[in-house]
């Protein structure tokens, strides 16, 4: 796939097509190093969408149909690389937009160069809250008037709300809040405690436990949580330490469920926790289950194109895929490859965009420095609860699955099933 696209680009170049005949999109992210599973999945999802669009003749831009040309840059999850890449992209002149970036630090270091030039960027798939709030009003200084940075990710606020909601729905009363000592972990704890208050204090926080990056032995924290009768562990941390918590809980015979941020779906949690990870719940934007024809086509397409049987990060892949279709819709509506016009179109997308995660109806609105949500595509209803089961992430709640099937086909799952059966006959 990668080679094909690269080859395609070469052929285009060889034919002497000048820059004006393609829509140039830059894909950036960490394609090597520790965050690579998310970075490469996003890139591969985006490339799949771009290949589909190009195979269908390209995007209708005004009177012409234009193919998408990819510019690919690996930021290695390093802030300084991110800044250099952003400067390079900002100086290109004929770039239509940027899709990508996993790490918040990279956004903080690089996005200002794009924003200064008004280059449209869709941050995808992750990045903590700070990557957007840096443009918003702050107590000591007003935010930017015009913002060309958009985000396409289930931000931490939504996730924390869902984690708390899930614990309440599962009838837990006493919970332990567990987090790592990084910025990510501590702000996650704050979000969760905040949500517990907002959702009516139905959960009693019996323990708050902290650990450091690199800790392998969580026995002390877990024993304390167990001794005060915690029924569930609400957790905010990253892969390897999350696995140490699951393994430690199994060791001391603690049966409490683990519920936490979407990092619980990363392969370095799932693989390291093994069977002790079963039952762990986390918010997901996409589950690798072919429940709708659109999802099936996407999953099969991805597996075939990249010769894998499990996406390194299904969430990242699906978000990369949908982000391209949203961007393409904006290009079409703008009728131009000019990044400023595309930004305006993005802020007011008239036609719904059919994606693999959802049908995106007017995902963004005019930027308001008082409300970051104007440039956030995700709302609560596009996020579902995922659950780890035997090394894969499946739907945590059947109701989510049923809802998605219904939204996609207008049928209830039972009917969809009989229909599918009829087809196979």
């Amino acid at each position: 796939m990668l080679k094909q696209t690269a080859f395609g680009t070469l052929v285009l170049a060889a034919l002497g097509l000048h820059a004006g005949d393609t829509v140039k999109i830059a894909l950036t992210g960490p394609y090597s190093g520790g965050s690579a599973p998310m970075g490469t999945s996003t890139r591969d999802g985006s490339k799949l969408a771009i290949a589909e669009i190009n195979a269908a003749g390209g995007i209708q831009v005004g009177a012409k149909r234009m193919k998408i040309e990819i510019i690919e840059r690996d930021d290695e999850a390093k802030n300084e690389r991110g800044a250099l890449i952003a400067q390079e992209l900002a100086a290109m002149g004929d770039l239509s937009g940027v899709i990508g970036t996993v790490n918040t630090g990279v956004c903080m270091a690089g996005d200002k160069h794009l924003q200064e030039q008004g280059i449209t960027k869709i941050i995808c798939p992750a990045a903590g809250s700070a990557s957007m709030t840096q443009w918003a009003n702050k107590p000591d200084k007003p935010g930017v008037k015009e913002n060309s940075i958009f985000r396409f990710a289930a931000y931490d606020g939504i996730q924390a709300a869902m984690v708390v909601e899930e614990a309440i729905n599962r009838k837990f009363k006493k919970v332990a809040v567990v987090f790592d000592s990084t910025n990510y972990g501590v702000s996650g704890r704050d979000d969760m405690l905040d949500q517990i208050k907002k959702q009516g204090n139905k959960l009693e926080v019996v323990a708050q436990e902290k650990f450091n990056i690199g800790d392998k032995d969580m026995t002390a924290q877990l024993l304390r949580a167990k001794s005060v009768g915690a029924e569930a562990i609400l957790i905010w941390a990253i892969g390897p330490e999350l696995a140490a918590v699951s393994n430690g809980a199994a060791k001391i015979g603690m049966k409490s469920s683990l519920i936490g941020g979407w990092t619980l779906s990363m392969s370095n949690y799932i693989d390291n926790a093994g069977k002790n990870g079963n039952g762990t719940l986390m918010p997901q934007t996409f589950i690798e289950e072919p429940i709708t024809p659109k999802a099936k086509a996407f999953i099969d397409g991805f597996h075939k194109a990249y010769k894998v049987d499990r996406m390194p990060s299904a969430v990242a892949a699906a978000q990369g895929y949908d982000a391209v279709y949203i961007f393409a819709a904006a290009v079409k509506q703008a009728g131009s490859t000019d990044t400023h016009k595309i930004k305006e179109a993005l802020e007011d997308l008239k036609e719904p965009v059919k994606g693999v995660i959802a049908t995106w109806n007017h995902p963004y609105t005019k930027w308001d420095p008082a409300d970051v949500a104007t440039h956030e595509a995700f709302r609560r209803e596009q996020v579902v609860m995922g659950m780890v089961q035997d090394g894969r992430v499946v739907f945590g709640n059947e109701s989510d699955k049923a809802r998605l099937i219904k939204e996609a086909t207008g049928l209830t799952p039972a009917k969809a099933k009989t229909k599918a059966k009829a087809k196979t006959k």
Partner: protein
Amino acid sequence: MNASIIGQMAVSGALMGLVYALIAYGFQLTYATSKSINFGQGELVMVSAFFSLTLTNLGLPYWAMIPGGLLFGALMGLVVERAGVRLALEQRSEGWILLTIIIGLFFFSAAENIWGRDDRPFPTPISADPIRVLGVDITRLEISVAVGVLGIMGLIELFKRRTLLGKAFEAVSADRDAAELMGISATRTVMLSYGLSGAVAALAGILVSPITTVGPTMASALILKAFSVAVVAGLDSGFGVVLIGMFLGALESLSSFYLGSGWREAPGLVLLILALAVRPTGVFGKAVIRKV
């Protein structure tokens, strides 16, 4: 707090402490013959664990993988001896300190490039399900650590006492010059001690990996504690490292329970400072009279 929690913390801490003891024992082996220590011992633990993981991934069964891993560790120990220690010792310089650190850094970079930076699970046929003994949950995995550590230390001690080669080892430890006059090759004996030390490091890696996962940084925490154990116990008492290792492990886990996980390392470090101040030869060490 009730007694069963204290028991639980102390027991799981002490079992982890045995791993510190095993790594500390690796220090002792080379110190005995050459008065030198491999400061890259932690990296030896790590590369051997990665190598054993590769053997497992190639389809080798667990029990066949262990000798392979140990052999690899021994070979790496010999590499350290040849590249970092022998010349420095011949020149009677302290160059081995820096050289062993550098070789360790080299192993670290090599591991990052060959196996990547991620932490990976280490498969084992030994079950991690807890068994309840006197109100304390112990996993078979933890028991395997205890058996492995005490087993290999017992074997090496037997070898030192019962075989001719082992006696040579002891002779060089006691007096290098006198042993050489008796026709024992000190160089060979030092090689032997580095080989054994490497094998011990490899076993430590194989035993601890299923519990902690394998990654390039896996040994950085272990090595500091092993060093504390070696210093507190004294650099020539195998029995001492076992006791101090278990004590330090239990102390750590109790302090992380009572003082908070951030204070986990603190008591061990206080112990290290105290030992250096009060008994520099170690609690179980022999005071050496230095003739001037």
